[in-house]
């Protein structure tokens, strides 16, 4: 059985973070009253963990104070609550002072499907993307998530990592992956390239396989580092393709598709370009993530149809 099915990407991250914490007592994790079985071992490390209660602004401000005194700090809660809830603290106390603090948000996109607009992690990329000094990661599997524990430790600057609740399979098990590249050419093709991030990379691979069967050779790029985007490598990969699609579980305004569009425009790349994402609406639909995807036209079958329609 693939280990991705047992542990989520957050858990893979915490397993590695625990190793780091045991080796370096100058590390610290703050939680706003969120836990995880894999986090418990860190929570028990004396002088390296604190629960501030349900108080996200305090979580970030305290992280700032700890970091100013020399600690490497991570803070953790559900994705909307480490971002939008305490955004100004992230902007000023973490990014503007360029401190070694990492925001860990669990539940990307519609991970918390039935919990409604309060817990849906959409709009976060657009919200977090502008802030200088911040590096943003959206891993697609546990292999990348594990590596990010070390990246966020060694690179003493602000980071934001958004984890999905689930990892269907590990995309990069036993495959050479260079995390420093910030993106992976997950699947090759020569006509259409689908760029995606996080959990949706798995869907993108499905869409690409469907399109291949329809006679459209389709590749996939996993954009797991959303800021800064490795635009040189991305553009190099895109030279192999005629048409470009971005596919994300987020609003079209300011998200990953917007970021890619900015790079294409700024570099004078005027290929056919389609952004697929969520319409401008709040989601109150229940029944699970697959239902939400279907209603938003973000499931693999709908996306395949959308791309085929666009190609004709």
């Amino acid at each position, binding site marked *: 059985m693939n280990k991705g099915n047992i542990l989520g990407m957050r858990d893979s991250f915490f397993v590695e973070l625990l190793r780091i914490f045991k080796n370096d007592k100058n590390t610290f994790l703050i939680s706003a009253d969120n836990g995880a079985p894999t986090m418990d071992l860190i929570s028990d490390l004396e002088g390296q963990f604190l629960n501030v209660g349900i*108080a996200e602004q*305090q979580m970030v*401000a305290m992280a700032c104070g700890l970091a*100013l*005194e020399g600690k490497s700090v991570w803070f953790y809660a559900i994705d909307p609550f480490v971002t939008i809830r305490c955004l100004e603290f992230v902007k000023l106390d973490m990014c503007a002072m360029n401190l070694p603090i990492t925001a860990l948000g669990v539940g990307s996109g519609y991970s918390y499907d039935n919990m409604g607009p309060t817990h849906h992690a959409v709009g976060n990329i657009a919200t977090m993307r502008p802030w200088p000094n911040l590096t943003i990661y959206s891993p697609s599997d546990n292999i990348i998530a594990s590596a990010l524990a070390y990246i966020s430790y060694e690179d003493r600057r602000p980071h934001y990592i958004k984890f999905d609740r689930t990892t269907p399979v590990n995309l990069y098990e036993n495959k050479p992956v260079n995390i420093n590249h910030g993106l992976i050419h997950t699947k090759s093709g020569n006509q259409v390239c689908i760029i995606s991030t996080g959990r949706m990379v798995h869907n993108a691979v499905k869409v690409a396989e469907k399109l291949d069967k329809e006679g459209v050779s389709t590749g996939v790029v996993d954009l797991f580092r959303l800021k800064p985007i490795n635009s040189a490598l991305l553009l190099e990969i895109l030279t192999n393709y005629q048409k470009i699609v971005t596919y994300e579980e987020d609003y079209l305004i300011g998200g990953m598709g917007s970021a890619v569009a900015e790079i294409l425009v700024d570099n004078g790349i005027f290929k056919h370009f389609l952004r697929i994402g969520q319409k401008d609406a709040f989601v109150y639909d229940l029944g699970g993530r697959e239902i939400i995807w279907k209603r938003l036209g973000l499931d693999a079958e709908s996306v395949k149809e959308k791309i085929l329609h666009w190609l004709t």
Partner: protein
Amino acid sequence: MNKLAPLEHIELKLKANWVRRKVLQMAVKAKSGHVTTAFSLTELLLTLYEGGVLKYRLDNSKWSGRDRFILSEGQAAIGIYPILADVGFFPMQYLDNFLGENSTLGVHSEPHTPGIEVLTGSLGHGLGIASGMAYVAKLDNISKEERLIMCLTGDGELCEGSNWEAFITIQSRNLDNIVLVVNRNHHFTIGRTDSIITQRDVCLDPLTSKLESFGFEVRLVPGHSFPKLFSVFADIRTRNIEKPLAIIADTVKGNGSSYIADKRFWHYRVPQGHELQHVETDLENEKLQLEKEYLILGGKHE
């Protein structure tokens, strides 16, 4: 900290008068700056930096043995700059370039300025940051005698909920190495903080019992009296009560000139024209009076 001798007291009052005149001059030249906030803090900040309260080193503003002082009400920066220059953190000429090209002295305090710890200006950030610094001192077994974490907030600033989030951490972890100083100058930008007279006002009271209920030892002090200020800070390293300390300094927004003192709408206005003449005259008269008293007490001409 020394007991305040009469002559020393007059010298400090003269210094406060100089700080206010300097603040006014900087604000007028730059056409910007929170003059009345600065005027409410002059004696308090002088006590901290020139009355032997805070530990710092001029040759290394990041010296690890220093006390951490966080000016959470960042708009008061114009009030601390003359004092930081006076004690020697940076040359006095820097004050003449307040808000100017290549200056580090902005409207709000920024960490590039020697003597300033953190970026503030958006209110309600300082105390949470202080709690992190205080927690590290606790983890490292550094006593409050060795290192104090002091955070100065405005009174209006306490409306920010993040302060109350920080109070819960401070109480839960009993961070008794924290000294919260509240500049109780009774005014927001447009409203009062102590009474509901108009629709612009918000009442923070009873502030003392609120802070006590959040686990603080609370002290009240008249914020423009050097002897009282010296006294309230005298034992902050050695006090036996194992609670965080809150000092509420009762101050007057715009203190030093009756023309702008305790009046609405002077939060972010720089006096000009006849207004400026009024304020300058008030400060000049105070200076002449203090110089007379200084000579009577045996002070020497400069």
